[in-house]
C-alpha cells in the first residue's frame, strides 16, 4: 500500500519525473507518427502499383509476341480453373514519344502498351487513372469536373472538350502559318482567314501529320511553306475530299490556282520538296516529303469519313509524368505544374517492328487522355495505344489468319491469395524459354523490398530514440534515489523490506512508462489524425508547402494506423522505462538504512 501511495505521490510531486514522462511521450508519439506515415505511404504505393499492374503477368520473352491471343488466353484459363477473373491481352514494347514544344520535337523514352481498354479496365482500374474520368482537385477545390458521364468505360473516343481543343489548335495552326509566308498578299488572304473557322470541313484528306513529320527531318521554312500550302488548299471549297495521294493532291491544289502569288508558293514548295528529296536521294521528291505508306493509308482512310480535324487512327493515353513539368512562375514565384501535351494533340511515336531484325517504325497518334496513377515510375513511362493499331504498325498481324500477336497477358485473379498457385500452374503450362510468369509483387520485388527495409531501419532508429529516453529515465531515477535516500532509510526503519523499496521505484518507472506512452500514444494518434491540418499550419508559418502534392502525387499525407504497431510501441516504451528503473531501484533497495538515515 505504501508503495502505491509513495509511487503516485512521487509522480505527482516530482517535476523532474515530468521530464522522463515527456521524453517517453515524445519518443512514443514520434514512432507512432512516423510508422503511420510510413505504412500509409507503403500501403498507398502498394495499392497504386497493384492498381496499375495486373495480379499476374504472362510475358513473352521476345518482342514479336505470340501469334494467337485467344488460344493463349484459353490455355491460361484451362490450367488455372476458375480462379481467373479477367485477362487482357496486350502488346508491350519500348518506344519513343515525341511531342512538340517550343517549336521543336521533344523525345521521351516510353513503354508502349497496346491495350483494349475494355479488357484492360477489367484487370486494372484504368478508368480511375484517366484524367477525363475524374474531377481535378487543386488545394481541395474542384477546378474541373469529370468530362465523361458516370459509369462510362474507357474507350478511344475523344471527349468533346478534347475535340474542341483539337479543332482550335488546328485552326490556330492554319492561321499562324498563313501570314508567315511573306510573299502572300495579305489582302488576298483575308477571305481565307474569315472562312477558315467556319469551314474546316472543306479541307482535303491531307494528313495533318505531314508537316509535323517533315519538320523534324528538314528545314523549318519548309514546314512553313507546306503549311501555307495546306492552308490555301483548305480555303478552296472545290472538289470533294477523297482518299487521294496526299502529295499529289496538295500539289494539284496549288497548281490549279490562277493567282500569281499562289504560284510562287507552288514554286517554293516544289523547290523545297526537291531539296528534301535530293537530300534523301529518293526518286520522287514529293513522296519523300511524306510519312511512310502505312501511315498515309491509315490516315487517308480515316479522313474519308470526316474532316481533317478528325483524330488520327492511332490513339493514346499518355502518362502524365511524360508531359508534365514543374515550372516556377516568374511572377508569383510559386511552382506550377505545366502540361505540355493535352488530349486532342497529336504526337509521334517511334518503335520497332516485330520480326528479325526489328526495323524502326514511326506513326502519329492522337492523345485521347492523360494517364495519372500517382506512381511517378509509371506515369513517366507508360503510353497506352490502341492494340489493333499498334499491332498493325508493328506488323504483328498475321496476313493469313488476321490475328494479331500479343506479348503480354495481364491476369486479374478472383482472389489474390491464389497467386502463388496460379503462377505455378501457369509456369507449367507456358514453357519458360518462351514466357515469363510473375505476380506483380515479384515484378516489383526490389522496390517493395526496399520500402520494407526502409521501414524496418527507420523503426530501429526510432526505437533508439526511446532507448535514449530510457537512459534519460535512468539518470533521472538515479537522481531521485539519491534525493530520496533519507526517505528510503525511514521506510526501512519503519519495517519496509528491500524488495518493497525496490518495488516503489520499479512501479515508479512503470507508472512513468504507462503515463508517458499513454499520453504519447494519444498525442501521436492525434497528430496522425490531424497531420494534414498540421501540415497546412506549418505551410502557413513557413510560407511554403511542406508536403507538395504535386511532388508526391498524394492529395494529402497518407497515413495508416496499425493497432498492433501502436500497442507494441507503447509496450516497448513501458518495458524500456521499467528496465531503466531497475538499476536505480536496486541501488535504492540496497541502501543501508543507517547510512540512509545519517544523510542530512
Amino acid at each position, binding site marked *: *500500500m505504501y*508503495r502505491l501511495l*509513495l509511487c503516485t505521490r512521487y509522480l505527482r510531486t516530482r517535476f523532474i519525473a515530468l521530464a522522463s514522462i515527456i521524453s517517453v511521450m515524445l519518443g512514443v508519439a514520434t514512432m507512432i507518427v512516423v510508422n503511420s506515415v510510413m505504412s500509409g505511404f507503403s500501403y498507398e504505393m502498394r495499392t497504386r502499383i497493384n492498381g496499375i499492374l495486373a495480379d499476374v503477368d504472362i510475358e513473352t520473352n521476345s518482342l514479336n509476341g505470340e501469334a494467337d491471343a485467344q488460344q493463349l488466353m484459353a490455355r491460361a484459363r484451362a490450367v488455372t480453373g476458375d480462379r481467373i477473373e479477367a485477362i487482357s491481352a496486350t502488346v508491350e514494347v519500348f518506344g519513343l514519344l515525341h511531342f512538340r514544344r517550343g517549336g521543336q520535337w521533344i523525345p521521351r523514352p516510353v513503354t508502349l502498351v497496346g491495350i483494349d481498354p475494355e479488357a484492360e479496365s477489367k484487370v486494372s482500374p484504368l478508368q480511375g487513372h484517366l484524367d477525363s474520368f475524374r474531377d481535378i482537385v487543386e488545394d481541395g477545390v474542384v477546378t474541373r469536373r469529370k468530362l465523361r458521364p458516370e459509369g462510362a468505360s474507357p474507350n478511344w473516343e475523344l471527349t468533346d472538350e478534347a475535340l474542341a481543343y483539337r479543332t482550335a489548335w488546328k485552326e490556330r495552326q492554319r492561321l499562324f502559318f498563313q501570314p508567315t509566308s511573306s510573299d502572300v498578299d495579305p489582302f488576298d488572304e483575308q477571305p481565307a482567314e474569315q472562312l477558315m473557322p467556319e469551314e474546316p470541313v472543306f479541307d482535303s484528306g491531307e494528313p495533318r501529320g505531314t508537316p509535323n513529320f517533315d519538320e523534324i527531318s528538314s528545314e523549318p521554312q519548309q514546314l512553313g511553306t507546306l503549311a501555307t500550302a495546306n492552308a490555301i488548299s483548305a480555303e478552296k471549297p472545290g472538289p470533294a475530299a477523297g482518299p487521294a495521294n496526299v502529295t499529289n493532291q496538295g500539289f494539284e491544289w496549288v497548281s490549279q490556282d490562277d493567282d500569281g502569288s499562289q504560284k510562287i508558293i507552288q514554286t517554293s514548295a516544289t523547290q523545297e520538296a526537291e531539296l528534301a528529296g535530293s537530300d534523301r536521294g529518293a526518286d520522287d521528291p514529293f513522296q519523300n516529303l511524306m510519312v511512310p505508306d502505312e501511315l498515309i493509308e491509315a490516315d487517308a482512310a480515316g479522313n474519308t469519313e470526316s474532316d481533317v480535324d478528325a483524330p488520327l487512327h492511332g490513339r493514346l493515353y499518355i502518362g502524365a509524368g511524360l508531359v508534365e513539368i514543374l515550372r516556377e512562375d516568374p511572377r508569383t514565384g510559386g511552382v506550377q505544374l505545366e502540361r505540355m501535351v493535352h488530349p486532342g494533340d497529336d504526337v509521334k511515336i517511334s518503335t520497332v517492328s516485330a520480326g528479325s531484325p526489328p526495323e524502326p517504325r514511326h506513326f502519329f497518334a492522337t492523345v485521347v487522355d492523360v494517364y495519372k496513377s500517382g506512381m511517378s515510375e509509371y506515369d513517366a513511362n507508360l503510353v497506352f495505344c490502341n492494340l489493333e493499331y499498334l499491332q498493325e504498325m508493328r506488323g504483328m498481324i498475321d496476313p493469313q489468319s488476321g490475328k494479331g500477336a500479343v506479348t503480354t497477358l495481364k491476369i486479374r485473379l478472383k482472389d489474390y491469395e491464389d497467386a502463388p498457385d496460379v503462377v505455378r500452374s501457369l509456369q507449367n503450362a507456358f514453357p519458360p524459354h518462351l514466357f515469363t510468369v510473375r505476380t506483380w509483387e515479384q515484378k516489383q520485388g526490389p522496390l517493395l523490398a526496399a520500402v520494407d527495409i526502409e521501414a524496418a531501419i527507420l523503426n530501429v532508429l526510432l526505437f533508439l530514440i526511446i532507448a535514449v529516453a530510457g537512459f534519460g529515465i535512468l539518470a533521472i531515477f538515479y537522481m531521485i534515489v539519491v534525493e530520496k535516500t533519507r*526517505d528510503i532509510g525511514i*521506510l*526501512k*526503519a519503519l*519495517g*519496509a*523490506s528491500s524488495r518493497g523499496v525496490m518495488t516503489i521505484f520499479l512501479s515508479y518507472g512503470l507508472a512513468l512508462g504507462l503515463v508517458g506512452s499513454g499520453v504519447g500514444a494519444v498525442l501521436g494518434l492525434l497528430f496522425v489524425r490531424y497531420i494534414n491540418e498540421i501540415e497546412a499550419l506549418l505551410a502557413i508559418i513557413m510560407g511554403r508547402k511542406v508536403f507538395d502534392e504535386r511532388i508526391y502525387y498524394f492529395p494529402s499525407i497518407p497515413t495508416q494506423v496499425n493497432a498492433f504497431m501502436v500497442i507494441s510501441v507503447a509496450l516497448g516504451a513501458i518495458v524500456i522505462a521499467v528496465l531503466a528503473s531497475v538499476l536505480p531501484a536496486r541501488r535504492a533497495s540496497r541502501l543501508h538504512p543507517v547510512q540512509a538515515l545519517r544523510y542530512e
Partner: protein
Amino acid sequence: MPAFPQPSTNDASTRHLSAVAIEKVYMKGQHRIPVLRGVEMHAHRGEFLSIVGQSGSGKSTLLHLMGLLDQPTVGEVRLRCEGADGAPTETLRVDNLPPATRDVIRNRVFGFIFQFYHLLPELNVLENVLAPLMIRDSAMKYWKNRREYRDQANAIIEQVELSHRLKHRPSELSGGEMQRAAIARALVARPEILLADEPTGNLDAQTGRGIMDLLCSLNEDHGLTIVMVTHDDAIAEQSHRIVRLANGNVERLEKAAA
C-alpha cells in the same frame, strides 16, 4: 505515581531488550574503526532508559543495533518475546535473523523517533502516521482495514495534540509538531519498545520539555519500554535509568533518581 512498578535492574526475567557483548567495527578503507567495544546493556520491560554520551561515543550506533537497523560485528541483540496464545515467553537472539524477519520485527516491535523527525515529505501528517500500518499490510488487507486504521491513527494524533494538522505536509509544521507527528507514527503500530534518537536535539528547551513529558506519560500510562539516546544530561534526568557511554563502552550505570 507510575501505573507500572519500577522494574528491578538486576532481574533477568524483566529484561526486555538486551545488548550482549556488542562490538561494532566500521571499515574505512583499510582501517578498522571500532565504535562499540563489548557493550552490555539491558532495557527492562516498562523502563525508560537513557543512553548518554559524547558525540562519537557510539550511542546512536548502539541504538541502531538494538533497533535492528544494523548488525553488530560481534555480540548479540536479544529480545524477550511474549508468547502469544499461551506459548512460553522466551528471550531470542534477533540480530542474526534473516532480513525479512528483522523487517517485520522492526515494524511490529519497535517504534523509532529521530532527531530530525524523518517524516516523509510527500505525505501529510495522517499518511505519515499511517505509514507503518501500510508497510505492515498488503494493499488489499490495508484497504479492508483502512477505517479501523484511520481511527487508530486519529486517536494517536489526538493524543499528541495534532488533530488540527491532519492534512498538513511536514514542511508546514513546526519542529515540535513534526516531532509529535513522528511520535504518533512510532506509536501507531502499538510497539513494545520505543527507540528515540535525540528526540529533543533539534528543539528549543520548552518544546523539548513538552516532548519529554509526552514520552514520560507514554511510559507511565502504557508501560512502554523506552530507550532514549541523548547528549543532554538534563533531558536524561527525566528517565528511570541512565547508561553512560564513553569510547564505545558503558561507563557506569546509575539511577536517574539517585
